[in-house]
């Protein structure tokens, strides 16, 4: 079942850098959908459209629709704050907020008005466990989150998103700065997460795309070249360009 439907989405930034041209496809619920391709292809831009984070950027023109549960989230009238609670995002570089691990995880909930200590504590343990970092930090929840290693920070950032109990999780090259062991932990966490959430991932390599994808979309210079099931797309791509990229002939 499609959780997100993207209909002829086009977008251009004011400085003319990355853009999207007439992109249409559907993103399945409870699956990992991977958006991959060389840099400048529009993957991150698309990701940032899904939670309207592009509102913060200088966008020159955009058109098309994005339906999440049937509602067009590009409609200027929708509640963007509610959307961002429902669609969480993990960034390429872990950015722990300048506060303790616990406060990082409860930040979003407190913004939403949750004050009950028991609820917050429960959310801290649940989301840190889901992000596979609870055992490493449970004894020092009140230390500053920046004191953790990069891999730990990134999992705390994931937990911070999970604490809001979103329905969709966007990850923009979440493992680009991590060592293979940390990367493995994050990838394993994703496989757990997709049981409950819809996961959209921009991987940091084709290999990671191949390892994690249930569905995959190949982007080249703002256009969706090919979209399909992960296995078939990586083993038997239909488009010549996809095959060239997957086999490493360019990129």
């Amino acid at each position, binding site marked *: 079942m499609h959780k997100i439907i993207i209909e002829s989405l086009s977008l251009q930034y004011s400085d003319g850098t990355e853009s999207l041209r007439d992109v249409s496809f559907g993103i399945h619920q409870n699956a990992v959908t991977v958006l991959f391709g060389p840099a400048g292809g529009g993957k991150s831009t698309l990701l940032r459209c899904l*939670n309207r984070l592009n509102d913060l950027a200088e966008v020159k023109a955009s058109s098309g629709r994005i339906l999440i549960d049937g509602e067009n989230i590009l409609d200027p009238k929708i509640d963007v704050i*509610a959307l961002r609670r429902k669609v969480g995002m993990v960034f390429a570089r872990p950015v722990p*907020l*300048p506060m303790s691990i616990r406060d990082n995880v409860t*930040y979003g909930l407190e913004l939403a008005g949750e004050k009950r200590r028991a609820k917050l504590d429960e959310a801290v343990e649940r989301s840190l466990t889901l992000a596979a970092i609870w055992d490493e930090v449970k004894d020092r929840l009140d230390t500053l989150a*920046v004191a953790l290693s990069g891999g730990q920070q990134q999992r705390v950032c994931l937990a911070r998103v999970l604490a809001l109990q979103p329905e969709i999780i966007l990850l923009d090259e979440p493992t680009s700065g991590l060592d293979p062991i940390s990367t493995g932990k994050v990838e394993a966490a994703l496989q757990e997460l997709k049981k409950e959430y819809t996961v959209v991932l921009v991987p940091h390599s084709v290999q990671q795309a191949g390892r994690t994808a249930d569905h995959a979309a190949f982007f080249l210079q703002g256009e969706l070249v090919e979209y399909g099931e992960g296995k078939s797309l990586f083993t038997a791509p239909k488009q010549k360009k996809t095959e060239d990229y997957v086999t490493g002939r360019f990129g």
Partner: protein
Amino acid sequence: MRREYLAPTQITDIMKRPFTPNRRLIERIGFAGLTTTALVTTLPIVGTIVYILIQGAPAISLEFLTSFPRDGMRAGGILPAIIGTLYLALGVSIFAVPLGIAAAIYLAEYASDTPLTRTIRIAIINLAGIPSVVYGLFGLGLFVLFLNFGTSILAASLTLSIMTLPVIISTAEEALRTVPQSFRTVSASLGATRWQTIRRIVLKEALPGILTGVILGLERAVGETAPILFTGAAFFLPRLPNSPFDATMALPYHLFVISTQVPNMPVQIQYGVALTLLAFVLTMNLVATVIRSRARAKRQW
């Protein structure tokens, strides 16, 4: 535009050139010259402070700081001037600090680059360049006469506030801008409104920088004579002011008065007042420096 680059072989040629004693000597002389210039610039400051300290220290006593002037200000203490300066600083804190920080938040966090905000910025820069005596005259016209506050602490603090605003606004704006953009993006992605992000993250991180600006602004206000000359400063008052509509004595104006208007003034008292004023300003400076360096040591980004 084309730039000329050295070919790699040319660079290695230059690197292979022997570092002769002659070139070493030139370098030494160069460094020595720069060091001397740097030291020379601190001389006037250190000289002034030391001189005032030596001349003024004998005048300082508990009585000097806590009693009223006597004998046409030629003896006794300077309590009313100290209290008056504190009142003026308080007044500036009440008017200029909230307004300045609010303006800085608007400029740094909300305003986009439009003709309006450009005008505001230019206005602030120009405000900072206006001579202080002009502020004094403006304060006389607006607060003392037009708004009928009279020569009063209120009129003087408002005048000083206008003069201080640009300092507070520009340092606070700078402090807000140094908070990394990524914090704002992350906060927004977690469902924060702009104001929630500002209140919970940006202001907290920028606070030391903002405080520094506030203190620097207050420091300037405390030391100024011209703006209070027409708006609130009294030549001599036999009692402490007891309402914002009273005129007040103030340290910088008192120093001006006893240095130029009172015949047969003991020099010691003049230096005593100068030292007290200097102590005010230097203490504030010290506090600002401590806040800044502590925050820098604690900062994690």
